[in-house]
């Protein structure tokens, strides 16, 4: 049985049944602290920037250009980018294009299972303002209402060269210590969660997927 915390600072987990409540933790997410010595934090940021492992989850159209990115012509591996099959081992979530409501629920689940520091790259114009599905009843229009985004790469569809440029931009941001999407998520957790629950009507998972 997971040890559950006391009454303060816990989550409701209203979507779970009574027996499932015993299986999931109801602790709130925690922000990760930077290292107290600046040199160590810079070294850690350099290490994180040069080993960005992407979660292999093609959420939409944008996934079609992720495959050529890994081949020898554009070669994302030289930046330390590799595709991982599980969120536990990855640090970057690439939102490939539009997010339908059904996929958004799985994106949230996978994102929360990733370990911090974690970053989100939004590909394409659809996460920015809905793109060409701006009037669709099943795709979200502003992705950063639901999860914090660190980098937008616009286009439809963005070419692999643009993706490489975006990765380099993300690396610069991480090394400068300005990539704090995961901490923003924790600090504004209630706001994000309220937005998510507004669109996802069948919330049958814990409030935070550890």
């Amino acid at each position, binding site marked *: 049985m997971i040890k559950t915390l006391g009454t303060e600072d816990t989550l409701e987990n209203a979507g779970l049944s009574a027996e499932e409540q015993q299986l999931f933790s109801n602790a709130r997410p925690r922000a990760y602290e930077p290292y107290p010595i600046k040199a160590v934090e810079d070294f850690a940021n350099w290490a994180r920037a040069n080993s960005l492992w992407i979660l292999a989850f093609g959420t939409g159209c944008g996934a079609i250009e992720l495959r050529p990115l890994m081949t020898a012509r554009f070669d994302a591996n030289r930046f330390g980018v590799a595709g991982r099959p599980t969120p536990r081992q990855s640090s970057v979530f690439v939102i490939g294009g539009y997010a339908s409501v059904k996929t958004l629920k799985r994106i949230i689940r996978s994102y929360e299972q990733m370990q911090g520091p974690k970053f989100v790259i939004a590909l394409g114009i659809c996460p920015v303002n809905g793109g*060409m599905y701006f009037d669709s009843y099943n795709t979200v229009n502003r992705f950063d209402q639901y999860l914090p985004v660190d980098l937008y790469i616009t286009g439809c569809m963005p070419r692999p060269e643009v993706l490489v440029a975006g990765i380099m931009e993300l690396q610069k941001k991480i090394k400068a210590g300005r990539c704090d999407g995961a901490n923003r998520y924790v600090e504004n957790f209630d706001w994000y969660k309220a937005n998510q629950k507004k669109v996802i009507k069948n919330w049958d998972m814990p409030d935070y997927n550890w």
Partner: protein
Amino acid sequence: MTQSTGHSAALDFAQPEPPDLSSGKYVKLWQGPQHPGITGNMSLELVLDGDTIIACKTHVGYLHRGFEKLMERRTFIQNFTVVCRIAVPEPTFNEYLYSHAVEELSGIEVPERAVWLRTMNLEMMRLASFLMWIGGQSGAFGQYTVPNWTLAYRDYVLDLFEEMTGARIYHMYIVPGGVRAGLPDGFEERAREIMKGAEKLLDQIERVMFHNVVFKARSKGLGIITPDMVDPYGIVGPNARACGLARDIRKDEPYLAYDRLDFDTITGNEPDAYGRAYLRLQETRQSISLIRQCLDRAPTDGPFQADMPNVLHWKIPAGETYVKAECTRGEYGYYMVTDGTEFVRRVHVRGPSYTHAIAVMERLAVGTNIADIAGLMVSLHTYPPEIER
């Protein structure tokens, strides 16, 4: 690993009894949308008895954008920019079918040069799609050399697309009335060179992949489709041709320039995953030969777009039509109904994966090993975006 149907598919449509999950004998797994063993974004709810699957339910809808509703809100000329995104890995067929349906309903005649350019564009799209599929099929069985080869070589074909149309993936080249532009200078030499390289690559792939002991052992006997399953399940394309049925829309009901091109319908006699894969390899070679024929015979001058009415005020008389084309997966169809206004009344997109990925997959998955499920899914060549549009 082997799969037996046991009874005639034509008679048994009843859904099987769900297994008793609380008995402690079975394991329920979700091979969900975030999984490297799924083509695209759909999920399988599997119930396992040891290593063998005894029940499979498919879940789609992760890519549902409501295209048919969106198309009703846009005018005829605005729609062609949207349709290519319905089937993400193979967009050109949507553009062609939409344009063809609109032209049929409004009585526009496409000039000769545009017909040949459209044919070449579609065959190049088939080639690129088959290359990606070959990589997917061998990758599903753990052989990662071949996907790296084919995905890398496919980039050259995407370069050709970029020269021809301006974009790698979503071309928006085939418009109602014709095509958007002619071929640039020097395109023919570059295209021929890339076709030569593709042939050499396919020979190498045949040696590395199809003569490989492990690939043969894993794919032979996997996912057998019997001929009496084909019509009740609506199986089309290479999946049906591998059972021996000679059904190819390019030959049976020719469209574009296919009645003037020289090719045969390829059929196979091994309806398992290996047979289907080999048939698709042969169809890739056929696509290369068709592209070469188009390069030889396409007219190099003349108009590439018909005279169109004022597209901003375009009203098409009431009518309905159904057009279809042979894409890499089979029969792709557009059903369009107009009612005399500026907006289309109803467009229904019939993707081949609609039946392959849901009814056929649930049928074939029963009895396979959990390790082979990814291979089985890829061998049916399903693309989830066209299921839920």
